[in-house]
């Protein structure tokens, strides 16, 4: 079995900041495990500007922000990086089982930082009634399809939820020639940044319906239309307020869930509601020497804050290793 002083799972902004700062604080034997074929995580598909003002003191796009961290981490020879590598199992005593093309490896970590980010809530988790045709995407998947793969997911789009990814995708789809017919938000206000409501919707005259929800999705093979209905303060439908929007695509942007199934498997105490570790101090868990940072610790608004707090995880792991030896 391979042995490492520090293993970091996830090579997005959180994992990279944690690795760099663990090294800065004296850890010399570090492995970063990343499932994708590049470092950078979700930043790679966020090609809009708005990153880096706090952390790098300049306005960057997602890939630019990632690149700065990648250059830094690549310049440190003591940090080993394993790409296209999936952790499929984690035990309480920090043994990881990793699958990658051509190998299954087991690695014992003295200290472990999990920087596994989030997944998007799905249409299924908010229970939108109706059929299940092609044309229903999470906003992040649509973003990946356009920005990474070069496909337009659809031409007449309704977006559910006004979180930042949904707002940014409204603008992105419009720029790509799709017609964004509406953004539907069940709450009284957007969960996204105000600047995104202004720059992504208002500037493009895209209607945003607060206190509304999609009550039904229609379509046999591909989405054909959706019913929209107003909701009252208790989120119950207001009868008589229904209207229909013809569309071929529904984007779902209804929030993020920390991707913490591995630490749950290892027996870390979890908050069932948020899927985050229950914790009294930033980045710590119920298992000593097992840290969680970035969006898998709590859902952040800004990548800059993720980097800042994840540096602390690097320091915490270094300190843990020092006290241990």
């Amino acid at each position, binding site marked *: 079995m391979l042995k490492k002083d520090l293993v970091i799972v996830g090579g997005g902004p959180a994992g990279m900041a944690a690795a760099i700062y663990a090294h800065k604080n004296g850890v010399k034997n570090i492995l970063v495990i990343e*499932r994708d074929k590049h470092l950078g995580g979700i930043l790679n598909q966020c090609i809009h500007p708005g990153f880096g003002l706090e952390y790098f003191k300049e306005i960057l796009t997602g890939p630019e922000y990632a690149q700065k961290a990648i250059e830094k981490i690549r310049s440190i020879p003591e940090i080993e990086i394993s790409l*296209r590598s*999936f952790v*499929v*199992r984690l035990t309480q005593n920090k043994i990881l*089982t990793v*699958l*990658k*093309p*051509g*190998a*299954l490896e087991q690695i014992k970590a003295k200290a472990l930082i999990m920087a596994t980010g989030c*997944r*998007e809530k*799905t*249409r*299924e*988790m908010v*229970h939108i*009634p*109706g*059929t*299940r*045709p*092609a044309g229903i*995407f*999470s906003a*992040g*998947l649509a973003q*990946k*399809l*356009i920005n*990474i*793969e*070069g*496909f*337009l*997911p*659809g*031409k007449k789009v309704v977006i559910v939820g006004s979180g930042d990814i949904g707002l940014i995708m409204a603008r992105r789809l419009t720029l*790509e020639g*799709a017609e964004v017919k509406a953004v539907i938000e069940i709450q009284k206000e957007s969960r996204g940044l105000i600047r995104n409501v202004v720059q992504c919707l208002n500037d493009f005259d895209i209607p945003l319906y607060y206190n509304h929800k999609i009550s*039904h999705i*229609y379509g*046999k*093979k*591909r989405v054909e239309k959706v019913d929209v209905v107003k909701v009252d303060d208790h989120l119950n439908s207001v009868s008589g307020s229904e209207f229909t929007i013809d569309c*071929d*695509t529904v984007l779902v942007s209804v929030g993020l869930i920390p991707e913490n*199934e591995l630490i*749950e498997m290892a027996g870390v105490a979890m908050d*069932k*509601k948020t899927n985050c570790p229950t914790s009294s101090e930033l980045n710590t868990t119920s298992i000593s020497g097992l840290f969680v940072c970035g969006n898998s610790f709590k859902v952040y608004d800004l990548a800059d804050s993720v980097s800042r707090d994840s540096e602390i995880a690097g320091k915490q792991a270094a300190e843990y290793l020092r006290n241990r030896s």
Partner: protein
Amino acid sequence: MIYDIIIIGAGVVGTSIARELSRYQLKIAIVEKEEELAFGVSKSNSGIIHPGTQNSPESLKGKLCVQGNKLIRKISRELGVDFKEVGELIVAFNEEDISLLEKLEDDGKKLGVPRLKIVNQAWLQKHEPNLSKTAVAALYAPTAGIVSPYRLAYDLAENAVQNNVKIYTNSPVTHIKQLETERDSQAPFEITTPNGTLNARYVINSAGLFADEISRLVGIDNFKIHPRKGEEFILDKKREHITNHLLFPLPSKTSKGILVIKTSDGNPMIGPTAQDVDSKEDLSTSDEGLKKVLDGVRRMIPSISENDIIAYFAGLRPSAGDDFIIRHEDKVPGFINVAGIQSPGLTAAPAIALMVCDILKSAGLKLKKRKIFHSHRKKTIHLFASSLRKIKNFIKKDSSYGDIVCRCEMVSRKEIEDAIARGATTLDGIKFRTRAQAGRCHGGFCTTRILKILSENLKKAPTEITKNGAGSEIVAQERDHA
């Protein structure tokens, strides 16, 4: 060329019949209207191999179910299908209902259901600890089991093809004409699909929801298929061990009730509802359905939470009265209806296939065994169902088993490429065969990669790749890079 037999409909019934008939020296084809097999009624089957209880002792359903429960074990071994005998409990919540359990037990015994027994509250609390403490007794049927309904259909079809059965997909039957009778032989049928015509001496109609419409094409209009919708909700794999058995309430007249189902994928499933609908295409789910299912299962397992649900779907049962319709239509010699195959149709399918063989024999078809019948197929590899030691060996043999595409369900590129080699052409086909996209993120991370793998392997443009057939293309267009 004239086929000896054409089977209309490639669900679990059609593929079971095809595989059984492929033992004999016959030219056989299956025609299927959808892009892939098992895309009709079978894809939303619950996957339960029923023991035979909850059927009237006189019914064809009951008889074929008990027989099918025995046959499915051998078929599963031969085809490498994961069959698990998990047992079922039909639960009673008050003392008066125990007499109803006894009635079910009696009916079951008359049908020959083995090892039935009524268990008491103490037994239940020991063997099914999450069951509501208000449950007083249950009828325990240890021979109940689970399989993956679509993987069973795919494996049956694959084995049938190994034995020379031909499958035509995307071929909805629009006309059937019986040609003039030749001397001393069965008058052949001419079957028309948009892709052309096929001829066969015998036609087996296992067209599921559309069996009445197919039957009418030959002028037999003696039954009607009523679609009855069932909404089902799939729970996160983390809840795999929420029950140890399949849990049933006492049955009503029209359905077996809302169940807690174990599945061979690991994810528990709750449902189904039972609602008569007008349209054979109404696969929508509803808020009311969710509420009904949650209320129903919480009576049995109070700890089931709405937050455990990761996916849901609706299916339509092809109901045609109380019992199955399996018969030779004497008015149209050579035409056999296999219709109204709702629950326990999956369990009964192997027995239905044997019954159809007998019907064909009576109708004058000679069944002569092939010299070589390939009875076995190589078990499909699923990493999610394999030990780490085995996974290590798979990767040693082919490195792409280590290339994970779907992280929620642990599905490798090799498994996806295998599924394509075995006939998957759509995202849903990949999902049913491999479970990729079926987990908690619902394809959020892996859809793009699967789209590309399908595109490369099928040599089609990504814009041509569909969810489940023409009209369900995933992406509208490639971006203009000019």
